[in-house]
Protein backbone atom coordinates (compact mmCIF):
# COMPACT_ATOMS: atom_id res chain seq x y z
CA UNK A 1 0.00 0.00 0.00
CA UNK A 2 2.78 2.42 0.99
CA UNK A 3 4.81 1.47 -2.04
CA UNK A 4 1.80 2.04 -4.27
CA UNK A 5 1.03 5.56 -3.01
CA UNK A 6 4.72 6.43 -3.34
CA UNK A 7 5.17 5.01 -6.86
CA UNK A 8 1.68 5.64 -8.17
CA UNK A 9 2.92 6.80 -11.61
CA UNK A 10 4.32 3.40 -12.58
CA UNK A 11 2.62 0.99 -10.20
CA UNK A 12 -0.80 -0.53 -10.54
CA UNK A 13 -2.74 -1.65 -7.50
CA UNK A 14 -4.26 -5.12 -7.70
CA UNK A 15 -6.09 -6.60 -4.76
CA UNK A 16 -6.77 -10.33 -4.43
CA UNK A 17 -10.31 -9.93 -3.19
CA UNK A 18 -13.59 -8.14 -3.85
CA UNK A 19 -12.66 -5.51 -1.24
CA UNK A 20 -11.09 -2.03 -1.35
CA UNK A 21 -12.21 1.19 -3.02
CA UNK A 22 -14.47 1.30 -6.07
CA UNK A 23 -14.05 0.01 -8.76
CA UNK A 24 -11.81 -2.80 -7.44
CA UNK A 25 -14.58 -4.92 -5.85
CA UNK A 26 -16.49 -4.73 -9.13
CA UNK A 27 -13.45 -5.56 -11.26
CA UNK A 28 -12.45 -8.57 -9.15
CA UNK A 29 -16.07 -9.79 -9.08
CA UNK A 30 -16.29 -9.59 -12.87
CA UNK A 31 -13.01 -11.47 -13.36
CA UNK A 32 -13.92 -14.09 -10.75
CA UNK A 33 -17.41 -14.60 -12.18
CA UNK A 34 -16.10 -16.88 -14.94
CA UNK A 35 -16.71 -19.80 -12.54
CA UNK A 36 -20.35 -18.76 -12.05
CA UNK A 37 -20.91 -18.40 -15.79
CA UNK A 38 -19.40 -21.84 -16.40
CA UNK A 39 -21.67 -23.35 -13.75
CA UNK A 40 -24.69 -21.64 -15.26
CA UNK A 41 -23.92 -23.35 -18.58
CA UNK A 42 -22.58 -26.66 -17.33
CA UNK A 43 -25.01 -27.52 -14.50
CA UNK A 44 -27.94 -28.14 -16.91
CA UNK A 45 -25.61 -30.17 -19.17
CA UNK A 46 -24.09 -32.29 -16.40
CA UNK A 47 -26.78 -32.38 -13.71
CA UNK A 48 -29.87 -31.76 -15.79
CA UNK A 49 -30.80 -28.46 -14.11
CA UNK A 50 -29.56 -25.50 -12.10
CA UNK A 51 -28.56 -26.20 -8.47
CA UNK A 52 -30.90 -25.64 -5.53
CA UNK A 53 -28.13 -24.32 -3.32
CA UNK A 54 -24.68 -22.85 -3.96
CA UNK A 55 -22.14 -22.91 -1.13
CA UNK A 56 -18.84 -21.02 -1.07
CA UNK A 57 -16.38 -19.87 1.61
CA UNK A 58 -16.09 -16.16 2.39
CA UNK A 59 -13.04 -14.31 3.67
CA UNK A 60 -12.83 -11.18 1.58
CA UNK A 61 -15.35 -13.06 -0.55
CA UNK A 62 -13.98 -13.22 -4.09
CA UNK A 63 -14.62 -16.88 -4.93
CA UNK A 64 -18.12 -16.66 -3.43
CA UNK A 65 -18.86 -13.46 -5.33
CA UNK A 66 -17.59 -15.10 -8.52
CA UNK A 67 -19.92 -18.08 -8.26
CA UNK A 68 -22.89 -16.16 -6.75
CA UNK A 69 -22.93 -13.24 -9.14
CA UNK A 70 -24.26 -14.91 -12.32
CA UNK A 71 -26.92 -16.58 -10.15
CA UNK A 72 -28.23 -13.43 -8.43
CA UNK A 73 -31.09 -13.17 -10.92
CA UNK A 74 -31.94 -16.88 -10.49
CA UNK A 75 -33.93 -16.31 -7.34
CA UNK A 76 -34.83 -19.96 -6.78
CA UNK A 77 -31.15 -20.72 -6.15
CA UNK A 78 -30.17 -20.32 -2.48
CA UNK A 79 -26.75 -18.74 -1.99
CA UNK A 80 -24.83 -19.61 1.17
CA UNK A 81 -21.51 -18.02 2.16
CA UNK A 82 -19.44 -19.75 4.82
CA UNK A 83 -17.27 -17.61 7.08
CA UNK A 84 -14.41 -18.80 9.28
CA UNK A 85 -15.50 -19.24 12.90
CA UNK A 86 -11.88 -20.06 13.84
CA UNK A 87 -11.85 -21.33 17.40
CA UNK A 88 -15.53 -20.41 17.74
CA UNK A 89 -17.26 -17.05 17.39
CA UNK A 90 -17.76 -16.83 21.16
CA UNK A 91 -13.98 -16.98 21.72
CA UNK A 92 -13.35 -13.83 19.68
CA UNK A 93 -10.69 -15.75 17.70
CA UNK A 94 -12.38 -15.93 14.29
CA UNK A 95 -12.78 -14.04 11.00
CA UNK A 96 -16.58 -13.93 10.68
CA UNK A 97 -17.05 -10.25 9.70
CA UNK A 98 -20.60 -10.63 8.37
CA UNK A 99 -21.86 -12.67 11.31
CA UNK A 100 -20.06 -10.92 14.15
CA UNK A 101 -18.96 -7.54 12.74
CA UNK A 102 -20.51 -4.09 12.49
CA UNK A 103 -20.53 -1.73 9.49
CA UNK A 104 -17.54 0.59 9.26
CA UNK A 105 -14.92 1.99 6.87
CA UNK A 106 -11.59 0.30 6.17
CA UNK A 107 -9.27 0.12 3.16
CA UNK A 108 -11.54 2.40 1.16
CA UNK A 109 -14.80 0.50 1.50
CA UNK A 110 -17.79 0.61 3.81
CA UNK A 111 -18.67 -2.90 4.91
CA UNK A 112 -18.98 -5.22 7.90
CA UNK A 113 -15.82 -5.10 10.00
CA UNK A 114 -14.52 -6.91 13.06
CA UNK A 115 -13.79 -4.03 15.40
CA UNK A 116 -13.94 -3.04 19.03
CA UNK A 117 -16.36 -0.49 20.52
CA UNK A 118 -13.91 2.36 19.73
CA UNK A 119 -13.76 1.47 16.04
CA UNK A 120 -10.29 -0.07 16.20
CA UNK A 121 -9.91 -3.03 13.84
CA UNK A 122 -9.75 -6.40 15.62
CA UNK A 123 -7.13 -9.13 15.29
CA UNK A 124 -8.57 -12.03 13.33
CA UNK A 125 -7.92 -15.74 13.29
CA UNK A 126 -8.57 -18.68 11.01
CA UNK A 127 -6.67 -21.88 10.28
CA UNK A 128 -6.90 -20.83 6.62
CA UNK A 129 -4.84 -17.74 5.77
CA UNK A 130 -7.17 -16.87 2.90
CA UNK A 131 -10.13 -16.28 5.23
CA UNK A 132 -8.13 -14.39 7.86
CA UNK A 133 -9.33 -10.81 7.14
CA UNK A 134 -11.24 -8.36 9.40
CA UNK A 135 -13.49 -7.07 6.61
CA UNK A 136 -15.47 -8.52 3.72
CA UNK A 137 -16.29 -7.35 0.20
CA UNK A 138 -19.02 -4.69 0.30
CA UNK A 139 -21.22 -6.57 -2.16
CA UNK A 140 -21.49 -9.41 0.36
CA UNK A 141 -22.62 -6.85 2.96
CA UNK A 142 -25.33 -5.87 0.51
CA UNK A 143 -26.31 -9.49 -0.23
CA UNK A 144 -26.57 -10.14 3.51
CA UNK A 145 -28.64 -7.03 4.24
CA UNK A 146 -30.93 -7.60 1.25
CA UNK A 147 -31.38 -11.25 2.24
CA UNK A 148 -30.38 -12.55 -1.21
CA UNK A 149 -27.55 -14.60 0.32
CA UNK A 150 -27.29 -16.32 3.70
CA UNK A 151 -24.12 -16.46 5.74
CA UNK A 152 -23.08 -19.16 8.18
CA UNK A 153 -19.80 -20.13 9.80
CA UNK A 154 -17.62 -23.19 10.26
CA UNK A 155 -14.85 -23.63 12.86
CA UNK A 156 -11.20 -24.57 12.25
CA UNK A 157 -11.86 -28.08 13.57
CA UNK A 158 -14.92 -28.61 11.37
CA UNK A 159 -13.00 -27.37 8.31
CA UNK A 160 -10.10 -29.72 9.09
CA UNK A 161 -12.50 -32.64 9.44
CA UNK A 162 -14.02 -31.82 6.03
CA UNK A 163 -10.51 -31.52 4.58
CA UNK A 164 -9.70 -35.05 5.80
CA UNK A 165 -13.01 -36.49 4.59
CA UNK A 166 -12.60 -35.03 1.12
CA UNK A 167 -9.05 -36.36 0.84
CA UNK A 168 -10.08 -39.80 2.06
CA UNK A 169 -13.36 -40.24 0.19
CA UNK A 170 -12.82 -38.28 -3.02
CA UNK A 171 -9.04 -38.31 -3.33
CA UNK A 172 -9.20 -34.55 -3.77
CA UNK A 173 -7.09 -32.27 -1.55
CA UNK A 174 -9.22 -29.16 -1.01
CA UNK A 175 -7.82 -25.84 0.21
CA UNK A 176 -8.55 -25.17 3.89
CA UNK A 177 -10.62 -22.18 2.74
CA UNK A 178 -12.80 -24.38 0.50
CA UNK A 179 -12.97 -26.98 3.27
CA UNK A 180 -15.19 -24.51 5.16
CA UNK A 181 -17.70 -24.68 2.30
CA UNK A 182 -17.43 -28.49 2.14
CA UNK A 183 -18.05 -28.75 5.87
CA UNK A 184 -21.24 -26.76 5.63
CA UNK A 185 -22.39 -28.78 2.62
CA UNK A 186 -21.90 -31.98 4.63
CA UNK A 187 -23.87 -30.48 7.52
CA UNK A 188 -26.70 -29.34 5.29
CA UNK A 189 -27.06 -32.34 2.98
CA UNK A 190 -28.71 -34.76 5.45
CA UNK A 191 -31.48 -32.18 6.09
CA UNK A 192 -32.41 -31.93 2.39
CA UNK A 193 -34.53 -34.13 0.12
CA UNK A 194 -32.52 -36.77 -1.72
CA UNK A 195 -32.93 -35.07 -5.11
CA UNK A 196 -31.60 -31.69 -3.89
CA UNK A 197 -28.68 -30.39 -5.97
CA UNK A 198 -25.81 -28.73 -4.10
CA UNK A 199 -23.05 -26.83 -5.88
CA UNK A 200 -19.92 -26.23 -3.78
CA UNK A 201 -17.16 -23.95 -5.01
CA UNK A 202 -13.92 -25.85 -4.53
CA UNK A 203 -12.04 -22.60 -4.86
CA UNK A 204 -8.51 -23.75 -4.16
CA UNK A 205 -6.20 -26.70 -3.83
CA UNK A 206 -4.96 -27.91 -0.51
CA UNK A 207 -1.41 -28.94 -1.34
CA UNK A 208 -0.45 -25.45 -0.15
CA UNK A 209 -1.99 -26.33 3.24
CA UNK A 210 -0.25 -29.67 3.87
CA UNK A 211 2.21 -28.22 6.40
CA UNK A 212 -0.60 -26.57 8.38
CA UNK A 213 -2.70 -29.73 8.36
CA UNK A 214 0.26 -31.92 9.36
CA UNK A 215 1.15 -29.62 12.23
CA UNK A 216 -2.45 -29.52 13.47
CA UNK A 217 -2.59 -33.34 13.26
CA UNK A 218 0.63 -33.74 15.24
CA UNK A 219 2.47 -35.18 12.23
CA UNK A 220 5.97 -34.34 11.09
CA UNK A 221 6.87 -34.24 7.45
CA UNK A 222 9.91 -36.20 6.38
CA UNK A 223 12.56 -33.68 5.57
CA UNK A 224 15.98 -34.18 4.02
CA UNK A 225 18.71 -33.36 6.56
CA UNK A 226 19.91 -30.43 4.44
CA UNK A 227 16.49 -28.75 4.45
CA UNK A 228 15.82 -29.13 8.18
CA UNK A 229 17.12 -25.94 9.83
CA UNK A 230 17.53 -27.67 13.22
CA UNK A 231 19.99 -30.19 11.74
CA UNK A 232 22.14 -27.77 9.82
Amino acid at each position, binding site marked *: *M*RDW*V*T*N*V*EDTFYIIGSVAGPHPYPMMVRDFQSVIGKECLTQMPELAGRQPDIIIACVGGGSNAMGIFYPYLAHEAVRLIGVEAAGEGIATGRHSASLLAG*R*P*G*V*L*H*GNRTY*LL*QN*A*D*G*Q*IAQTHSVSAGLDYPGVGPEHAWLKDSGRAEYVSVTDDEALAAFNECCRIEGIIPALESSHALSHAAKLAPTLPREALLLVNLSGRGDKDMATVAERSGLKFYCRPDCDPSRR
Partner: protein
Amino acid sequence: MNRIDKTFATLRAAGRVALIPYVTAGDPTPAVTVPLLHALVAAGADVVELGVPFSDPMADGPVIQRASERALAQGVSLSDVLDMVAAFRSKDAATPVVLMGYANPIEAMGVAEFATRAQQAGVDGVIVIDYPPEEAGEFAGLLDARGLAPIFLLSPTTPEARIVAVGRMARGYVYYVSLKGVTGAGHLDTGEVIAKLAEIRKHVALPVGVGFGIRDAASAQAIAAHADAVVIGSRIIQEIEASPASEAGERAASWLAAIRVAVDKVAKRAA
Protein backbone atom coordinates in the same frame (compact mmCIF):
# COMPACT_ATOMS: atom_id res chain seq x y z
CA MET B 1 -15.33 33.82 12.77
CA ASN B 2 -13.87 30.56 14.07
CA ARG B 3 -10.40 30.24 15.55
CA ILE B 4 -8.83 28.88 12.33
CA ASP B 5 -10.04 31.75 10.15
CA LYS B 6 -9.08 34.27 12.84
CA THR B 7 -5.58 32.79 13.13
CA PHE B 8 -4.94 32.85 9.38
CA ALA B 9 -6.34 36.39 9.09
CA THR B 10 -3.99 37.63 11.82
CA LEU B 11 -1.00 35.87 10.27
CA ARG B 12 -1.79 37.17 6.81
CA ALA B 13 -2.05 40.72 8.14
CA ALA B 14 1.39 40.29 9.72
CA GLY B 15 2.84 38.68 6.58
CA ARG B 16 3.65 35.47 8.46
CA VAL B 17 3.34 31.81 7.60
CA ALA B 18 1.48 29.45 9.95
CA LEU B 19 3.43 26.71 11.64
CA ILE B 20 1.34 23.61 12.34
CA PRO B 21 2.84 20.71 14.29
CA TYR B 22 1.16 17.31 14.37
CA VAL B 23 1.35 14.92 17.31
CA THR B 24 -0.55 11.72 17.99
CA ALA B 25 -2.85 11.90 21.01
CA GLY B 26 -1.69 9.60 23.79
CA ASP B 27 1.91 9.34 22.56
CA PRO B 28 4.19 8.73 24.39
CA THR B 29 1.62 8.59 27.22
CA PRO B 30 -1.89 10.06 27.58
CA ALA B 31 -0.71 12.30 30.45
CA VAL B 32 1.91 13.98 28.22
CA THR B 33 -0.43 15.08 25.43
CA VAL B 34 -2.02 18.21 26.92
CA PRO B 35 1.23 19.66 28.34
CA LEU B 36 2.89 18.79 25.01
CA LEU B 37 0.28 20.81 23.09
CA HIS B 38 0.81 23.81 25.39
CA ALA B 39 4.58 23.49 24.93
CA LEU B 40 4.21 23.41 21.14
CA VAL B 41 2.09 26.58 21.25
CA ALA B 42 4.69 28.26 23.47
CA ALA B 43 7.35 27.26 20.90
CA GLY B 44 5.49 29.02 18.11
CA ALA B 45 2.74 26.71 16.82
CA ASP B 46 -0.17 28.68 15.34
CA VAL B 47 -2.50 25.68 14.96
CA VAL B 48 -2.04 22.20 16.44
CA GLU B 49 -3.03 19.01 14.67
CA LEU B 50 -3.84 16.17 17.03
CA GLY B 51 -3.82 12.66 15.59
CA VAL B 52 -6.53 10.23 16.64
CA PRO B 53 -4.84 6.83 16.95
CA PHE B 54 -6.10 4.11 14.61
CA SER B 55 -5.20 0.43 14.30
CA ASP B 56 -4.77 0.55 10.50
CA PRO B 57 -3.20 3.93 9.59
CA MET B 58 -2.99 3.36 5.81
CA ALA B 59 -1.72 6.85 4.86
CA ASP B 60 0.94 7.05 7.52
CA GLY B 61 4.56 6.06 7.44
CA PRO B 62 6.18 3.88 10.09
CA VAL B 63 6.90 6.79 12.49
CA ILE B 64 3.29 7.88 12.94
CA GLN B 65 2.14 4.26 12.86
CA ARG B 66 4.39 3.55 15.85
CA ALA B 67 3.00 6.60 17.66
CA SER B 68 -0.51 5.27 17.01
CA GLU B 69 0.45 1.85 18.33
CA ARG B 70 1.96 3.33 21.51
CA ALA B 71 -1.26 5.26 22.15
CA LEU B 72 -3.54 2.30 21.42
CA ALA B 73 -1.47 0.05 23.69
CA GLN B 74 -2.47 2.49 26.46
CA GLY B 75 -6.14 2.27 25.47
CA VAL B 76 -6.52 5.78 24.00
CA SER B 77 -9.93 6.11 22.32
CA LEU B 78 -11.55 8.90 20.33
CA SER B 79 -13.49 9.80 23.45
CA ASP B 80 -10.21 10.21 25.37
CA VAL B 81 -8.85 12.42 22.57
CA LEU B 82 -11.87 14.72 22.88
CA ASP B 83 -11.28 14.91 26.64
CA MET B 84 -7.67 15.93 25.95
CA VAL B 85 -8.85 18.72 23.66
CA ALA B 86 -11.27 19.95 26.33
CA ALA B 87 -8.44 19.95 28.88
CA PHE B 88 -6.20 21.88 26.48
CA ARG B 89 -9.00 24.33 25.71
CA SER B 90 -9.55 25.12 29.40
CA LYS B 91 -6.14 26.84 29.43
CA ASP B 92 -5.87 28.03 25.82
CA ALA B 93 -8.92 29.70 24.34
CA ALA B 94 -7.22 30.94 21.17
CA THR B 95 -5.09 28.28 19.46
CA PRO B 96 -7.04 26.23 16.90
CA VAL B 97 -7.03 22.46 17.39
CA VAL B 98 -7.53 20.22 14.37
CA LEU B 99 -8.17 16.50 14.77
CA MET B 100 -6.66 14.24 12.14
CA GLY B 101 -7.54 10.60 11.79
CA TYR B 102 -9.42 7.87 10.00
CA ALA B 103 -13.14 7.39 9.45
CA ASN B 104 -13.82 4.23 11.43
CA PRO B 105 -13.42 5.48 15.02
CA ILE B 106 -15.69 8.42 14.10
CA GLU B 107 -18.25 6.10 12.51
CA ALA B 108 -18.12 3.87 15.60
CA MET B 109 -18.99 6.87 17.78
CA GLY B 110 -21.59 8.06 15.26
CA VAL B 111 -20.85 11.00 12.96
CA ALA B 112 -23.43 13.40 14.46
CA GLU B 113 -22.48 12.45 18.02
CA PHE B 114 -18.82 13.03 17.15
CA ALA B 115 -19.49 16.44 15.58
CA THR B 116 -21.41 17.58 18.66
CA ARG B 117 -18.86 16.29 21.14
CA ALA B 118 -15.98 17.75 19.10
CA GLN B 119 -17.67 21.14 19.16
CA GLN B 120 -18.23 20.91 22.91
CA ALA B 121 -14.59 19.93 23.48
CA GLY B 122 -13.35 22.96 21.55
CA VAL B 123 -12.16 21.31 18.33
CA ASP B 124 -11.91 23.70 15.36
CA GLY B 125 -11.35 21.46 12.37
CA VAL B 126 -11.31 17.79 11.39
CA ILE B 127 -9.27 15.93 8.77
CA VAL B 128 -10.57 12.46 7.96
CA ILE B 129 -7.97 10.88 5.74
CA ASP B 130 -10.23 8.22 4.25
CA TYR B 131 -13.26 10.39 3.52
CA PRO B 132 -12.80 11.52 -0.08
CA PRO B 133 -14.94 14.57 -0.94
CA GLU B 134 -17.37 12.32 -2.87
CA GLU B 135 -18.24 10.51 0.38
CA ALA B 136 -17.86 13.41 2.82
CA GLY B 137 -20.94 15.52 2.05
CA GLU B 138 -22.99 14.54 5.10
CA PHE B 139 -20.04 14.68 7.48
CA ALA B 140 -18.80 18.04 6.18
CA GLY B 141 -22.34 19.41 6.59
CA LEU B 142 -22.51 18.21 10.22
CA LEU B 143 -19.20 19.91 11.01
CA ASP B 144 -20.00 23.10 9.14
CA ALA B 145 -23.36 23.43 10.94
CA ARG B 146 -21.45 23.47 14.25
CA GLY B 147 -18.79 25.94 13.12
CA LEU B 148 -16.12 23.24 12.71
CA ALA B 149 -14.01 23.17 9.57
CA PRO B 150 -13.94 20.06 7.37
CA ILE B 151 -10.33 20.05 6.17
CA PHE B 152 -9.33 18.05 3.10
CA LEU B 153 -6.12 16.65 1.73
CA LEU B 154 -5.00 17.33 -1.82
CA SER B 155 -2.11 15.45 -3.38
CA PRO B 156 0.19 15.70 -6.42
CA THR B 157 -2.19 13.33 -8.24
CA THR B 158 -5.46 15.08 -7.34
CA PRO B 159 -7.24 15.87 -10.62
CA GLU B 160 -8.55 19.40 -11.23
CA ALA B 161 -12.22 18.37 -10.92
CA ARG B 162 -11.61 17.06 -7.43
CA ILE B 163 -9.69 20.21 -6.43
CA VAL B 164 -12.81 22.14 -7.48
CA ALA B 165 -15.05 19.83 -5.40
CA VAL B 166 -12.77 20.21 -2.37
CA GLY B 167 -12.71 23.97 -2.86
CA ARG B 168 -16.50 24.05 -2.50
CA MET B 169 -16.69 21.79 0.56
CA ALA B 170 -13.60 22.71 2.56
CA ARG B 171 -13.43 25.24 5.38
CA GLY B 172 -10.48 26.55 7.40
CA TYR B 173 -7.57 25.53 5.19
CA VAL B 174 -6.69 22.76 2.78
CA TYR B 175 -3.79 20.46 3.36
CA TYR B 176 -1.54 19.79 0.39
CA VAL B 177 0.31 16.49 0.63
CA SER B 178 3.63 17.58 -0.83
CA LEU B 179 4.71 14.25 -2.23
CA LYS B 180 3.49 10.96 -3.54
CA GLY B 181 3.85 8.77 -0.49
CA VAL B 182 3.05 8.36 3.16
CA THR B 183 3.68 10.72 6.08
CA GLY B 184 7.33 11.23 6.91
CA ALA B 185 8.68 10.21 3.51
CA GLY B 186 11.94 11.79 2.42
CA HIS B 187 11.70 12.92 -1.18
CA LEU B 188 10.21 16.40 -1.21
CA ASP B 189 10.42 18.25 -4.56
CA THR B 190 9.89 21.95 -3.90
CA GLY B 191 9.52 22.83 -7.58
CA GLU B 192 6.69 20.36 -7.98
CA VAL B 193 5.01 21.77 -4.88
CA ILE B 194 5.14 25.33 -6.24
CA ALA B 195 3.52 24.32 -9.53
CA LYS B 196 0.71 22.40 -7.82
CA LEU B 197 0.05 25.22 -5.31
CA ALA B 198 -0.61 27.57 -8.21
CA GLU B 199 -3.15 25.11 -9.64
CA ILE B 200 -4.84 24.66 -6.25
CA ARG B 201 -5.11 28.41 -5.66
CA LYS B 202 -7.03 28.78 -8.93
CA HIS B 203 -9.89 26.83 -7.33
CA VAL B 204 -9.45 27.13 -3.58
CA ALA B 205 -9.75 30.49 -1.83
CA LEU B 206 -8.71 29.08 1.57
CA PRO B 207 -5.15 29.11 2.95
CA VAL B 208 -3.07 26.15 1.75
CA GLY B 209 -0.94 24.23 4.23
CA VAL B 210 1.79 21.92 2.99
CA GLY B 211 2.93 18.81 4.82
CA PHE B 212 4.25 15.22 4.48
CA GLY B 213 8.03 15.26 4.13
CA ILE B 214 9.12 18.52 5.86
CA ARG B 215 11.87 17.55 8.24
CA ASP B 216 14.27 20.43 8.88
CA ALA B 217 14.71 24.20 8.83
CA ALA B 218 15.75 24.22 5.17
CA SER B 219 12.75 22.27 3.87
CA ALA B 220 10.41 24.25 6.15
CA GLN B 221 11.82 27.50 4.79
CA ALA B 222 11.60 26.36 1.18
CA ILE B 223 7.93 25.48 1.63
CA ALA B 224 7.13 28.57 3.73
CA ALA B 225 8.14 30.79 0.83
CA HIS B 226 5.14 29.48 -1.12
CA ALA B 227 2.59 28.02 1.30
CA ASP B 228 0.29 29.64 3.87
CA ALA B 229 1.16 27.02 6.46
CA VAL B 230 3.92 24.50 7.07
CA VAL B 231 2.76 21.23 8.65
CA ILE B 232 5.28 18.99 10.42
CA GLY B 233 4.44 15.62 11.96
CA SER B 234 6.77 12.65 11.68
CA ARG B 235 9.92 14.65 12.46
CA ILE B 236 8.40 15.90 15.75
CA ILE B 237 7.28 12.39 16.65
CA GLN B 238 10.85 11.21 16.10
CA GLU B 239 11.95 13.75 18.72
CA ILE B 240 9.29 12.41 21.08
CA GLU B 241 10.31 8.83 20.35
CA ALA B 242 13.94 9.58 21.13
CA SER B 243 13.18 11.20 24.52
CA PRO B 244 12.09 9.81 27.86
CA ALA B 245 8.36 10.56 28.36
CA SER B 246 9.13 13.21 30.99
CA GLU B 247 11.24 15.22 28.51
CA ALA B 248 9.23 14.56 25.33
CA GLY B 249 7.31 17.83 25.42
CA GLU B 250 10.39 19.92 26.07
CA ARG B 251 12.45 18.22 23.33
CA ALA B 252 9.64 18.49 20.75
CA ALA B 253 9.04 22.13 21.63
CA SER B 254 12.67 23.16 21.41
CA TRP B 255 12.98 21.43 18.03
CA LEU B 256 9.87 23.29 16.81
CA ALA B 257 11.14 26.64 18.15
CA ALA B 258 14.11 26.44 15.79
CA ILE B 259 11.77 25.76 12.86
CA ARG B 260 9.68 28.78 13.91
CA VAL B 261 12.78 31.01 13.62
CA ALA B 262 13.54 29.59 10.16
CA VAL B 263 9.98 30.02 8.91
CA ASP B 264 9.82 33.61 10.18
CA LYS B 265 12.87 34.51 8.11
CA VAL B 266 10.79 34.05 4.99
CA ALA B 267 9.47 37.40 3.82
CA LYS B 268 5.85 36.99 2.83
CA ARG B 269 3.65 38.48 0.19
CA ALA B 270 2.21 41.76 1.47
CA ALA B 271 -1.12 41.41 3.19
